[in-house]
């Protein structure tokens, strides 16, 4: 028995001796693997930390640059997230624009309404209601009154996004301080108004004095004097039309073209234009026929703007029709829609070349054949005419054949409504 035990013990020792070495090797191997793993993990962690630090630094830099950009550009950014109001935010510049101190809790939508100028409040309420309920882009301008009572003009622009799953909205936008631009626009508008008045006053004097000289009650003038005085009159009339075109273009560009609605007799107004343009037509031996439908209702519109439209069309017809030609103007109630006045002006003039027709209503554009016949011209008339007619919710179109003549078709409602103020607030 002892011998057996001794053999077993000896065998065990032998096994132990034999097994120890591989175990040792395995152990060392495991240790190496673990050490490598730890090393890789530490390196990865260090790299990750470095990357995070780099990203944080980059984020801080970008945030700082954005803050500076907003400060320099006088615009702030905002987010309203109705899925999670905690995600709503205002940039620093937003607080400054609205005259508020930065706070932990982002101001809500009502802040925009609370600070709106009383005169703009109802339009602003309508706009923000639309923004908060309808996905899509938005843009509008209005006045705010700061806590210091200072009035500021702001332009708000952004996008309302809808979450596909929750149908909740998220509003992202920017607010831009446009007070300076509005003041510049106002100054420009005042300058244009003053300049046009200063220019038109002496020219009106010249025109009227020439009319007085040509009146029957004045001392007789020779044929040559009559011709010269007529030319003085026509030139001054032409200058007034050019100034009016420039003034109207300026108003259109500045968004200050407003309407003064008045009721007037269309026939009386157009006959007045015919009287004014008669001499220019007579000089070229042009036949100018104007016909009117019976019982035309009065127009309830801006008299001066409507006058400008008809005057432009008739004076263009006279200008671009060679001697001995004809001009026909028909004024009627539209056949398809009785609420519209319809005016057709047809001439036997130089016509508009086919390739030029798409440009005819562009600002400053003049067709080459028009420039040859009448070198001086602003190219503004038809641009202003089209803008005014569209503002009145009317329409203008034309047909033309080069060398044969042109017909302009104008339709305007009998009753005009000036929606420009509302359109500006909603734009």
């Amino acid at each position, binding site marked *: 028995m002892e011998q057996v035990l001794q053999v077993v013990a000896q065998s065990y020792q032998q096994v132990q001796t034999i097994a120890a070495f591989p175990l040792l090797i395995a152990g060392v191997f495991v240790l190496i693997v673990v050490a490598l793993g730890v090393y890789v993990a530490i390196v990865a962690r260090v790299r990750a930390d470095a990357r995070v630090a780099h990203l944080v630094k980059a984020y801080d830099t970008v945030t700082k640059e954005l803050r500076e950009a907003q400060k320099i550009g006088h615009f702030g950014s905002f987010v309203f997230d109705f899925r999670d109001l905690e995600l709503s935010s205002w940039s620093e510049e937003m607080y400054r624009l609205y005259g508020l101190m930065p706070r932990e809790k982002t101001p809500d939508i009502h802040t925009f309404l609370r600070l709106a100028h009383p005169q703009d409040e109802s339009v602003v309420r309508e706009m923000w209601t639309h923004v908060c309920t309808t996905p899509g882009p938005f843009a509008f301008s209005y006045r705010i009154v700061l806590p210091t009572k200072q009035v500021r003009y702001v332009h708000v622009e952004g996008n309302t996004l809808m979450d596909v799953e929750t149908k909740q909205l998220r509003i992202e936008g920017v607010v831009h301080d446009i007070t300076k631009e509005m003041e510049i626009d106002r100054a420009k508008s005042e300058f*244009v*108004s003053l300049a*046009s008045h200063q220019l*038109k*006053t002496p020219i009106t*004097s010249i025109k009227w004095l020439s*009319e007085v000289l040509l009146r029957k009650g*004045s001392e007789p003038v020779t044929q040559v004097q009559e011709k010269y005085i007529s030319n003085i009159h026509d030139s001054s009339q032409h200058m007034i039309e050019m100034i009016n075109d420039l003034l109207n273009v300026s108003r259109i560009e500045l968004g200050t073209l407003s309407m*003064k609605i008045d009721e007037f007799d269309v026939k009386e107004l157009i006959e007045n234009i015919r009287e004014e343009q008669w001499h220019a037509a007579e000089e070229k031996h042009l036949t100018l026929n104007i016909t009117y439908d019976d019982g035309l209702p009065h127009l309830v519109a801006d008299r001066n703007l409507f006058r400008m439209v008809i005057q432009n069309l008739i004076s263009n017809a006279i200008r671009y029709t060679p001697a001995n030609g004809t001009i026909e103007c028909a004024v009627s109630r539209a056949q398809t829609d009785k609420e519209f006045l319809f005016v057709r002006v047809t001439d036997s003039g130089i016509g508009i070349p086919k390739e030029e027709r798409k440009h005819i209503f562009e600002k400053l554009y003049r067709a080459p054949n028009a420039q040859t016949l009448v070198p001086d011209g602003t190219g503004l008339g038809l641009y202003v005419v089209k803008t005014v007619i569209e503002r009145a919710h009317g329409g203008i179109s034309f047909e033309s054949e080069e060398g044969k003549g042109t017909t302009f078709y104008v339709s305007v409602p009998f009753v005009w409504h000036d929606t420009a103020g509302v359109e500006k607030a909603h734009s």
Partner: protein
Amino acid sequence: MTDTKKHTVLVVEDEMATALAMGSALEQEGYEVLRAADGEEGLRVALEKHPEVLLVDLKLPKMSGMDMIHALREDAWGKTARVVILTNVSDMGSLQAAMMNDTFYYLIKSDSSVADVIRAVATQLAPSA
């Protein structure tokens, strides 16, 4: 044509050439023409001479046309004086302000002829005016 020999018209206009043109044309039509070159003089002549029609430019020295008309309306006679506003003012704001509490016939000078001025005076003198 209206019997114009009995009618006086006051032209209140600081631009000499424009005043001359209007005055000459009205005299040719047989009106007696009074003239004033600023708002103060216009008001004084109006209250003194009681012209039947006043042609008043809006932009005047010393007293604007609008102020002159407001002062005129405070007078018992001036309340019902017939006024035609003449202006080259381009902004409707000033014109609308002038017409705010009153109804005026107005002419944009640069868009009108001398014949329009004469017609405006005749309209004011017509029995229904």
